[in-house]
């Protein structure tokens, strides 16, 4: 499963900002007797994937292809593992010389990178769970049981562009960073269908049979071409690749490789014909960066709104849960009117449970909790949408920290406050509610405000379960336009515009409380 891509994307954006971009990479240059090719082994089969029998070994038709190309070119093919969505930026950075990982040809990419001739002609397939009401592409144009069908795609892929363009108006497009998430989610009912490259669908559903309830429906659509990409300055390397590809086709090696993985079909016979007219005419002239940013801006604002809503829904929940836990844990203490009586078994159990909760939640990463809520709870019969999974995971994660903050806040209140309240005939719950909590909450406002800023930025983790919040929008926009730096700046400005006022507010609250002092 692909996690923490967001962090990686941010790191990439940062390095671009720092000027470590393509020139440095170029200086490193391709070695004469080898080439480094980039692929993502988590991208899945049949492309490049871990050998199920020996997970440390990477296999796939692209591995065989790269090695065959290497032999033809008289170079050693060295595989560099990278994130699928990072392959083009890794080219820029000079970490790899060729991208070879089911990357389809687009005119947009061909403007920024040197593209080879196609090595495979693929089509897009539609897959659903057996018994689904969706039986054809046309069914994606109408509501499913009164709502928009949810369609999973690999974010930034040709399937994403195709589904968004054709069915974006009638479907909710859910963008993932890997291929297998969508299968799993269809299986558990979180999403309704997936549009994917046919080789991937056939590999997982027909060859591995890992998701027996999933079916490929309707005929394949929208043919496209997998090509290798290199840096623009390396077009001689692409020339070598093209020569080698033609040789491999002529001597039957290509066919052998594809047959080995069950990928050979009539479409591949058209390869030489396609090569004759390569590259296809570039219909649309390139839009300027500003135009592209302007086109993305509404999406960025919408995503920023999702980020804000995520934060403002989950924080009050976190504070509420944290407060309840803090009261349970501090119940025996004198400041909450504990009399020093030996605890009851029920009380001890309850407190033990909260301690366990706090330790488990604080001891595991937020992303992991998110996966549990989104991917594991459905197996137990609880299905929550991605958005509410995000809210829940953030609330749970921060409740553990809020619980500790609140407990310290409660224990900072002088015991005399409780004693005075009890002496006036108040019950413990009344005294806690009217006397202790209002003061405790006031003392923890600065700490909680700081936590809120942290939570607000942690909403970015929700991108891993395809919640369309700000960092997800950044990664989709950057990948689809190639404007990593520009989009990073837009996203950063939006984050900053929202978190800065919060920081100022927190600082102001802290000053105010320190200055005045209570009691």
């Amino acid at each position, binding site marked *: 499963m692909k996690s923490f891509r967001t962090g990686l994307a941010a790191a990439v954006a940062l390095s671009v900002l720092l000027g470590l971009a393509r020139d440095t990479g170029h200086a490193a240059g391709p070695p004469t007797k080898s080439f480094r090719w980039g692929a993502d082994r988590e991208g899945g089969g049949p492309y490049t994937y871990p050998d199920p029998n020996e997970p440390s070994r990477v296999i796939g038709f692209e591995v065989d292809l790269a090695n065959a190309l290497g032999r033809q070119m008289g170079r050693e093919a060295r595989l560099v593992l990278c994130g699928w969505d990072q392959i083009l930026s890794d080219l820029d950075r000079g970490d790899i010389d060729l991208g070879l990982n089911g990357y389809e040809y687009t005119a947009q990419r061909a403007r920024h990178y040197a593209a080879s001739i196609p090595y495979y002609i693929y089509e897009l397939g539609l897959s659903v769970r057996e018994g689904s009401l969706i039986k054809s592409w046309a069914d994606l144009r109408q509501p499913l049981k009164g709502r928009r069908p949810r369609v999973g795609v690999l974010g930034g892929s040709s399937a994403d562009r195709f589904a968004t363009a054709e069915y974006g108006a009638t479907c909710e497009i859910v963008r993932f960073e890997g291929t297998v998430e969508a299968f799993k989610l269809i299986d558990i009912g979180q999403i309704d269908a997936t549009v994917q490259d046919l080789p991937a669908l056939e590999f997982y559903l027909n060859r591995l049979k890992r998701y027996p309830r999933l079916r490929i429906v309707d005929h394949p659509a929208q043919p496209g071409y997998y090509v290798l990409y290199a840096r623009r300055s390396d077009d001689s390397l692409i020339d070598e690749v093209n020569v080698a590809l033609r040789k491999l086709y002529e001597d039957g090696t290509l066919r052998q490789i594809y047959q080995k993985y069950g990928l050979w079909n009539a479409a591949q016979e058209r390869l030489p014909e396609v090569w004759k007219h390569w590259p296809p005419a570039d219909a649309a002239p390139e839009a300027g960066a500003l135009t592209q940013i302007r086109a993305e801006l509404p999406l960025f604002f919408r995503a920023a709104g999702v980020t804000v809503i995520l934060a403002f829904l989950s924080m009050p929940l976190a504070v509420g849960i944290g407060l309840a836990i803090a009261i349970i844990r501090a119940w025996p203490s004198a400041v909450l009117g504990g009399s020093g009586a030996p605890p009851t078994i029920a009380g001890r159990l309850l407190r033990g449970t909260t301690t366990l909760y706090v330790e488990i939640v604080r001891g595991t990463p937020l992303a992991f909790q998110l996966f549990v809520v989104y991917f594991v709870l459905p197996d137990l019969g609880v299905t929550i949408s991605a958005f509410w999974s995000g809210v829940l995971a953030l609330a749970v994660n921060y409740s553990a920290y809020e619980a500790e903050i609140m407990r310290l806040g409660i224990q900072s209140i002088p015991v005399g406050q409780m004693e*005075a309240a*009890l002496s006036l*005939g108040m019950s413990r719950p009344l005294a806690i509610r009217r006397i202790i909590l209002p003061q405790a909450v006031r003392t923890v406002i600065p700490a909680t405000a700081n936590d809120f800023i942290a939570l607000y930025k942690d909403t970015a983790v929700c991108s891993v379960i395809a919640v369309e919040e700000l960092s997800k929008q950044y990664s989709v926009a950057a990948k689809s336009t190639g404007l990593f730096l520009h989009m990073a700046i837009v996203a950063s400005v939006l984050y900053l515009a929202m978190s800065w006022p919060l920081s100022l507010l927190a600082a102001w609250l802290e000053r105010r409380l320190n200055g005045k002092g209570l009691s």
Partner: protein
Amino acid sequence: MLSVTNLVKRRGDREVLKGVNLRVERGTVGVLIGGSGSGKSTLIRCANGLEPFESGEVVVGDARLAAGNGGGREQQLCTLRRSVGTVFQQFNLFAHRTTLENVIEAPIYVLHKPRDEAIRQAELLLARVGLSDRLDALPHQLSGGQQQRVAIARALAMQPEVILFDEPTSSLDPKMTAEVLGVMTDLAKSGQTMLVATHAMSFARRVATNVHVLVDGFIVESGPPEQIFDCPTHPATRELLTSATFG
């Protein structure tokens, strides 16, 4: 009115109160004197249930508080505290509430009085302790003496049968001590039943109906102030009186 019978309080291995017997009749003022660490505060805290005790009992009117810390105590405490008010050495005003809010809090939330009525009553009480002009002040804006007078008004607002004072002037300077003792004297004259733990001997002499001398967890001597101050019979009382200041 208030009677403490055979009260024993232990802290770990140490017996702090070793069987205390004490009565305060309705409309009278009992003053508890004794050296530091003699157990005065502990006795007051046991009498309003802030600390459990090992044996004996406390009775106020119809309310009875038994020894131990078992079930049923919460209910006993609730009944008892309706009739017992407490004024603390450290005032313990609710730090987040104004003068007026401190006084109306319990009448509204415990006695369920209408807010208007609680405010009217609070204003009268605050006038009585001389704080009509500080209704909206927060505790940290008040002097110690003012805070303690608010605390007295707060206790009075519950119309308790007896008010316990736990060294009410020990944290105050002489001027503020005088203003608080003045309020307490007025209170005694109006017939409020009170039990006061204090070091203020001249107050005890002037105001007490009965003085109780607590030494090492025992009441060694009880009686009217003239008797205790002028012809003490117990050597510990004499020792206490010679070291005490009559400020």
